[in-house]
Each structure stands twice: as C-alpha cells, then as structure tokens.
C-alpha cells in the first residue's frame, strides 16, 4: 500500500474524532443513525448482543445488505471482517466501503495471524486491550484503533480496563530512559520503532476510539474523559427502548463529554437502556475480547 494511501486512511479517522459510530443492521436503522448525528455506521447482520445470544459462527455480513446500507446514507460505512480472513477483506474492499473493522466480534478465521492490512488500499480499524496489541495492529497496517471492551454486554467495564491499560503503558513508556525501551518493547510485543514514536507523542500515533459495552451517554463521556478520540456504540442503541432518542443523546454526550451540566440534560428521560451482562459471570470461552493476539 502506498504511504500516501495509508496517510489518507489515518486522516479519515481523524475527521471522525469526537463522533459516534453506530452499529446498524437495516437500511432504516442506518438512516436513523445518520439523522441522529452518527459520523459513520457499522453495517452488519446482527449486533453483538444477538451474536452472543445466538452463538454459532459469526461471519462477514451479506455484501448485499452492506451495499444497500451504503446506498442509503452519505456518512462513511464500515463493515466487519473476521480476524485473519483476508478474503472477506478483499470482498469488502471490492465493495468500496469506507473502513473495514477486523473484529473479534466475529468468529476468528485464523488463530495466529491477523490480516496483513498493509496490502490493502482500504483502511482498517482493529481492537486492542493494551498498548502491545494496538501497536502490533498499527504495524500490520491498521489506520485506526479502538478498545475491544466486551461487545454485546452493555457493560463498559472492559472498555475502561483496556483504555486505562493503554494509558498506563503509554505513561510508563513516556517516562522510561532510552535503554529500557527495547526491553519494554520486547516484553509487551511492541515493534521498537513504534515504541519510540509512542514515547515521543505520549499517545498512539493514530486515532483511538472506545468500543465494547457503551450503552449510555455517561458511558460515552466516561470513555472520552479517559482520553478516547470518539466512540463506537454497538448493541447499545438499537437494543434500547428508544433508539432515536438514545442515539441523539450519545452524540451530544460525546461532543460535550467534559460538561456535566449538559451531560445531565442529555441523560434524562431516555427510556430503558439495553439489558446488561455482568462480564465477571461470563465464562472465558464467551469473552470476545480474548480473540486476537
């Protein structure tokens, strides 16, 4: 992939900063999301809460559905490919959507290798639980990072854990004398050159969104105050009792994440949020965040 194409792809993510990317499963939902102020939609057949409930193998969505959603909105359209499934990614690139999410929400196709994203012209976003995972995905060609969180639970605890972990590791790196960087990079599986860049910048060199378990305006603002550049909301909107109202409220809360008076105003009278799951009670085999390496 040309260097200039990678830069354009990272820059599209920059234009999404401060925004909310919403999971949608129908054309109608995509239009509701756009109207509510989403900066992009993630087109898929089932939201993570349903994937979790129904079980089985979760794959790339039918390209026909993604195409219909692409034609119905003017905001960017993203879609998910399985971890390591580079042919699903080739198909999504041929469909000319705007961003591919190589996602642990789908059943991994490869338990060793992620997609070599540097071979694609289309941009990729990937999930990460810590700095090493984020850096490995960037080295493979991801132009945007998001926390993994624990998708489909409506429980923000894992997204908080992942963001706090990344922040802590970045602070450690930033404070580290030069001779310790190599060993830190080795221990955390961080490509050395990227470790140097992250140390210099004091943050990831690409946009980093929150994802996985965000269900309320307060959740979105929490992740923003922890330093995320924007927010993905998966099941949280269309599994709530009033998706339009909730979508608008989360958009407002993400823009005004630092203004408690406005957060109070937008949090009122939203109806029921999606039902939540206690992540601690999930057996390890049902934890999506542990997919990816």
């Amino acid at each position, binding site marked *: 992939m040309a260097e*200039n194409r990678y*830069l*354009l*792809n*990272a*820059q*599209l993510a*920059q*234009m*999404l*900063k*401060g*925004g*909310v990317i919403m999971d949608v499963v129908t054309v109608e939902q995509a239009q509701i999301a*756009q*109207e*509510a*102020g*989403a*900066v*992009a939609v993630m087109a898929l057949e089932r939201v993570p809460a349903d994937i979790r409930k129904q079980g089985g193998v979760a794959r790339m969505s039918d390209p026909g559905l993604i195409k219909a959603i*692409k034609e119905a909105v*003017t*905001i*960017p*359209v993203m879609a998910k490919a399985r971890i390591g499934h580079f042919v699903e990614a080739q198909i999504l*690139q041929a469909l*000319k*959507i*705007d*961003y591919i999410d190589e996602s642990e929400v789908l059943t991994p196709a490869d338990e060793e290798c992620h997609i070599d994203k540097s071979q694609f*012209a*289309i*941009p990729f976003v990937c999930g990460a639980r810590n700095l090493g995972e984020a850096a490995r995905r960037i080295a493979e060609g991801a132009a945007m990072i998001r926390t993994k969180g624990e998708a489909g639970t409506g429980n923000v605890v894992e997204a908080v854990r992942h963001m706090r972990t990344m*922040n802590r590791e970045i602070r450690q790196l930033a404070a580290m004398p030069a001779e310790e960087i190599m060993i830190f990079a080795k221990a955390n599986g961080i490509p050395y050159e990227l470790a140097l*860049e992250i140390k210099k*910048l*004091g*943050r990831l*060199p690409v946009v980093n969104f929150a994802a996985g378990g965000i269900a309320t305006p307060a959740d979105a603002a929490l992740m*923003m105050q922890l*330093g*995320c*550049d924007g927010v993905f909301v998966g099941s949280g909107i269309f599994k709530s009792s009033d998706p339009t109202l909730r979508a*608008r409220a989360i*958009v*407002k809360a*993400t*823009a*005004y994440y630092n*203004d408690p008076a*406005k957060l109070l105003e937008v949090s009122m009278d939203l109806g029921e949020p999606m039902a939540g799951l206690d992540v601690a009670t999930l057996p390890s085999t049902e934890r999506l965040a542990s997919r990816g390496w």
Partner: protein
Amino acid sequence: MSGLSNSGVIGVLDLQGGVQEHLDHLQRLGVASRPVKRAEELAALAGLIIPGGESTCLSRLLTIFGLREAIEERWRQGLQLWGTCAGAILLARENAGETPFFGLIDITVSRNAFGSQMDSFNCEALAPAVAREPIPLTFIRAPKILRAGPGVRVLLELDGYIAAAEDDRALVTIFHPELTPSLAFHRYFARKCGLRVAEADDAALDPAWTPQSWTRFSYHS
C-alpha cells in the same frame, strides 16, 4: 468589521472533526486560537473555522445548544467564517438534494461527490490569490462546489469543479489544508480576518509539521 470586538483570536468550532489539526496550524502561523464549544466562546473572535467532520453530525450539534443562532448573529456583526469540507457544506446556500444549513455564501455544493474513502486523494495546485507556489491539497470524501454565484470569487478550480471560493465574509475549501504541511490557507484566512501575519506569499510549508502533529492538542492529558 467592528474593530473593538476583534481580539485577534481565531476560533475553531470544537464539536466534532479535525479541530486539533486547525489549532496546530494556527499556532504554527503564530495566530492566537481557541476551541469553541459554547456560544459565549464566540465573543470577540476575529474569525471562526468550521472544520471537516460529518456535516449531519455538526448540523445537529450546532442546532441543539444554540450555537447556530449565535454564529449567525456574530457573522452579521462581522465574524469571518471559514468552512473546510463539511464546514463548506454547512455554509453553502444550496446543497444538491438536501436542505442547506447556514446558507451564508452563494455556492452550490454536492456532498461526498468523489465516491468512497478509496476515492480520497492528494494533489498539488496553484491558487494564485493564496500563494504564488503550488500547494499540497488533501481531499477526504470531499464535496464538490458546483456553482459560485455573483459576488463569490473562485480561488481554485480543478477538473470541472470549484475547490476553494470566498465572498467578503466567508471562505470555503472542499479540501483540508490542515492535513498538509502548508499554512498558506490559514495565512490567507488570518489576513481576511484582519490579523497581521507574515508578508510572505509562498506555499508556507512548515518543515516541522508531521502527520502526527495534531496529537499535541489531543484530549490526552
């Protein structure tokens, strides 16, 4: 322009999009700047940049907390506006197939007119009123300006579409100068706002700029 109310500060609308990139460019140019999230933060600004992002998202947020009326009011009092990409869409009088938002400059735009992200591109072009040298341009899922009405000056025309234009009160660019090393359009806008900036008319490429320069203004503490 009312000289008394002009503090020499340029604001960047901070609701969503490429806010930090514009703040970075203004600082490189030596222009005082501040992010604007609330109506009261518009007071005494010389100019306001409406950055790229998503126009539907920005329009919704502008409407909800009263910023729309406040910006219109300040514009009537002399505030200069510059819309980049989505910002240009919001300022346009006509938006092909959609309801215009501010409608403050007599142009017609068409949203996302090049295709998907894979049709985003870079090029270089000469905008003689802005710089005597060609400057780098970055188009990200850009709109096109299809028409410029009387009273609107075209600053840059490419293959059958207008890429930059202005009237006495507003500047519009469908590309992103803040995503390149060139400060030329920021210099041009600062002058339009009545600010004193360097006399130069070159491409104003800042050798210290990198694609990650924006991160110094990011929300991380």
